[in-house]
């Protein structure tokens, strides 16, 4: 019965967030999300949400803790360090593009006023390559995950702090766009991100417990047993879109970058703990 009551309340809160006839500010959105998950999972400390479904699923957590003892993403971090240290053909390297060092994940995603778009870490790394005459890396798997894994590992402990600058209305528009994506039903199966991760968070689809949106962005790239390797956040978006028989969008295309902007904003205040491991 408690479960049932919980879900009714979750629906009510989710409803006020998504339906919101009058526009809500990003901070209002974030507060509503926080309130909902805190209430739904009372007893789960805020900082635990970075662990996704394992914050709310004691059995899954046990397996996961065992996996984390020999982290499957470690070789990817090492590969990434080599990439970071190795100069491009022109003699320059990532270090020249990012003079403050590899602990940069906390700066992303951010609004890039000059380019008029949401800048993500993988995109920034590729722009660095292209500026130096190197081919861009593919965005879902492969060596991009090495370099992102290395920077993520170096950035552990930084705090998610996405800013929506008010000196450029396009930034808020990008956020709104990502928010709309999150709440829009799509695909033959007719789901939105919110259907699963907001309305029904904590419930089971078959044996999968639906993780809260809060904390979903803190730990990328992630090693998934199902993939047998490390993949990027946009690869995960692609997977969730395919599961509902929707045509996935382009990794690092505008839709997914705006979605990432919105999604990461929801996790403001949570620590970065990438790379992650999931089943």
């Amino acid at each position, binding site marked *: 019965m408690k479960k049932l009551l919980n879900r009714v309340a979750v629906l009510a809160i989710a409803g006020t967030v998504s339906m919101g006839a009058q526009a809500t500010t990003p901070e209002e959105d974030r507060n509503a999300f926080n309130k909902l998950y805190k209430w739904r999972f009372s007893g789960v400390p805020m900082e635990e949400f970075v662990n996704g479904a394992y914050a709310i699923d004691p059995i899954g957590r046990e397996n996961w803790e065992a996996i984390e003892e020999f982290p499957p993403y470690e070789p990817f971090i090492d590969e990434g360090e080599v990439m970071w240290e190795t100069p491009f053909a022109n003699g320059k390297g990532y270090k020249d593009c990012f003079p403050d060092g590899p602990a940069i994940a906390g700066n992303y995603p951010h609004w890039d006023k000059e380019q008029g778009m949401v800048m993500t870490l993988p995109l920034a790394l590729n722009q660095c390559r292209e500026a130096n005459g190197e081919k861009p890396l593919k965005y879902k798997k492969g060596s991009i995950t090495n370099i992102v894994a290395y920077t993520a590992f170096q950035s552990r402990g930084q705090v998610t702090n996405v800013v929506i600058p008010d000196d450029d209305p396009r930034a808020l528009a990008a956020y709104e766009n990502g928010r709309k994506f999150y709440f829009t039903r799509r695909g*033959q*199966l007719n789901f939105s991100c919110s259907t699963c991760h907001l309305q029904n968070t904590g419930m*089971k689809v078959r044996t999968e417990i639906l993780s809260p949106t809060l904390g979903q962005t803190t730990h990328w790239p992630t090693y998934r047993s199902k993939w047998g390797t490390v993949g990027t956040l946009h690869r995960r978006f692609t997977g969730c879109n395919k599961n509902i028989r929707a045509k996935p969008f382009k990794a690092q295309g505008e839709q997914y970058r705006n979605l990432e902007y919105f999604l990461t904003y929801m996790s403001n205040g949570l620590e970065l703990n990438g790379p992650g491991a999931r089943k």
Partner: protein
Amino acid sequence: MSISNLKLSVMAGAVTLLAGQILPLPSLAAEGSSVVAEGKAIALSRKKGNCLACHLIEGGEFPGNLGPPLIAMKARYPDKQKLRAQIWDPTAANPESAMVPFGRNKVLTEAEMDKLVEYIWTL
């Protein structure tokens, strides 16, 4: 479901009801059970109904719990058409429904829907 189909199945229902009061009809009953078996296959197949993703069904393995258990369906849906309507398009009753609109979005065909409903109604 087309109107003619609907009429047919309503009529068929009436016929079985009437006939059932008079004498058992072995041939119809046998056909009925194979329809139920086909409906069950559709319900359990991951590619078709995949109802177990969200519903507990007696005898089904690894059910999810997004939706309520599918149990005592005849009691809860004396009108089979209401049951069909819920599966056809759950968002008609509940716009926020997290259930797949199996008919409206053509996840299942009319014929598959008919068989599926026969099976679900036995639960």
